[in-house]
């Protein structure tokens, strides 16, 4: 005890230095975790948006000009998916030559929004539902111009991360006004939000956002 009292000031200084060191180390660890989560999340979404954009810019490729090559996106009006796009189907044509015979195929692609649980986000009063996008493909020989996909012919062909908190494909007309009229649709505006996959209570960015606009005329 006498020793401690004799070196009280030294002890206080040592404790302060130690405390500052611990705080600095904790802070830097949290920042490192958040940075990793941020870039990992961005990278996942980047690969998702890359193929999404590639898909959407191919809508109606090799298809008759002036014909619509997509079905209006299904917009949910209730439940956890309220305000989001739950399904979207479009197609393009492709040629395949086998033994000198060339056949036209119609490649149908559809996106489906599937639930992936919930996550607690700091500034939200209730848990935020998370979703993933599943991509299905079906290739059908064009025997008549009105060929349609069959319900059993879909094959899973890709998908996005299950961390989406918003997925909207919104048709707009040439004036940028939202529309539900296929004939007036000139653009598709895509908006995504996603939650970084690793939880960190000191996270500064709770949700990240991405958007693009794809012109789809002439079909």
């Amino acid at each position, binding site marked *: 005890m006498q020793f401690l009292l004799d070196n009280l000031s030294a002890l206080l200084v040592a404790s302060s230095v130690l405390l500052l060191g611990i705080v600095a180390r904790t802070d830097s660890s949290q920042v490192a975790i958040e940075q990793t989560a941020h870039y990992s999340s961005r990278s996942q979404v980047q690969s998702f948006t890359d193929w999404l954009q590639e898909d959407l810019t191919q809508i109606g490729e090799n298809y008759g000009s002036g014909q619509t090559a997509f079905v209006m996106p299904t917009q949910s009006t209730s439940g956890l998916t309220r*305000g989001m796009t739950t399904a979207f189907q479009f197609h393009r044509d492709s040629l395949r030559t086998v033994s000198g015979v060339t056949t036209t195929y119609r490649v149908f692609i559809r996106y489906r929004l599937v639930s992936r649980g919930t996550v607690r986000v700091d500034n939200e009063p209730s848990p935020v539902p998370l979703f993933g996008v599943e991509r299905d493909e079906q290739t059908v020989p064009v025997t008549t111009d009105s060929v349609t996909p069959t319900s059993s012919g879909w094959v899973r062909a890709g998908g996005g991360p299950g961390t989406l908190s918003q997925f909207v494909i919104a048709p707009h007309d040439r004036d940028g006004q939202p529309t539900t009229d296929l004939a007036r649709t000139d653009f598709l505006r895509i908006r995504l939000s996603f939650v970084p996959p690793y939880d960190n209570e000191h996270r500064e960015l709770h949700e990240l956002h991405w*958007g693009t606009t794809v012109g789809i005329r002439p079909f």
Partner: protein
Amino acid sequence: MPQTLLALLALSIAALLSLNVKDSSRGTYERQVYDEFEMTASAIALQVMETAEERPFDQRSTPAGITAGNKFLPVRTGAEFSSWTTFGGTTCDLDALWNTTSCDDLDDFSGITRQYVPFQLRSQWSGTTEIKRYIGLDVSIDVEYVLDEDFQVESALPTPHKRVRVYVYLDESVSTRRDRSVPLATLERVISYDERKAARDYQRATGTLPAGYNGPTD
């Protein structure tokens, strides 16, 4: 005395270390937030560019212009297009173009300076009420004629090519130490006159193809 000085030195070094870590954290967070603004700026720039590109190339090639001049412009020399001195001067609401119907061709976007354009984030719901949330950034646009043989060179005379530059800046409402005069995103595209598009625009507006159009039909 030496012990006190050493203690002070130790405390100073620890405080400096802590400050350094805090400063580094702040820098990291600032970069992340800035990355997000850049992503939003790119989305807004693309949205504005796509909308502008969908407009008729020139006042003379709008359905009203074709009707007023009683002439479709199949010739691509560009000589009959509007002078650059008439560019801009029209009110264009980039977020609600349907409210500014006089903003009806590509060069009407020229001269837009620091116009606020919102980007919608995920909506929150309070019962059945949708609470929309936005990030807003400022957009400026320049449109110029460029030479047929070199798109990097401006032309004082009309040509069939217009270069559109969209700049997106941080809005005044965003608190930042960054220089607001430096664009977050810049998008540049050269848009050329397409008689087929002009004919299609006319057909959409009037139901018939314009007289004098001999190109392919849909």
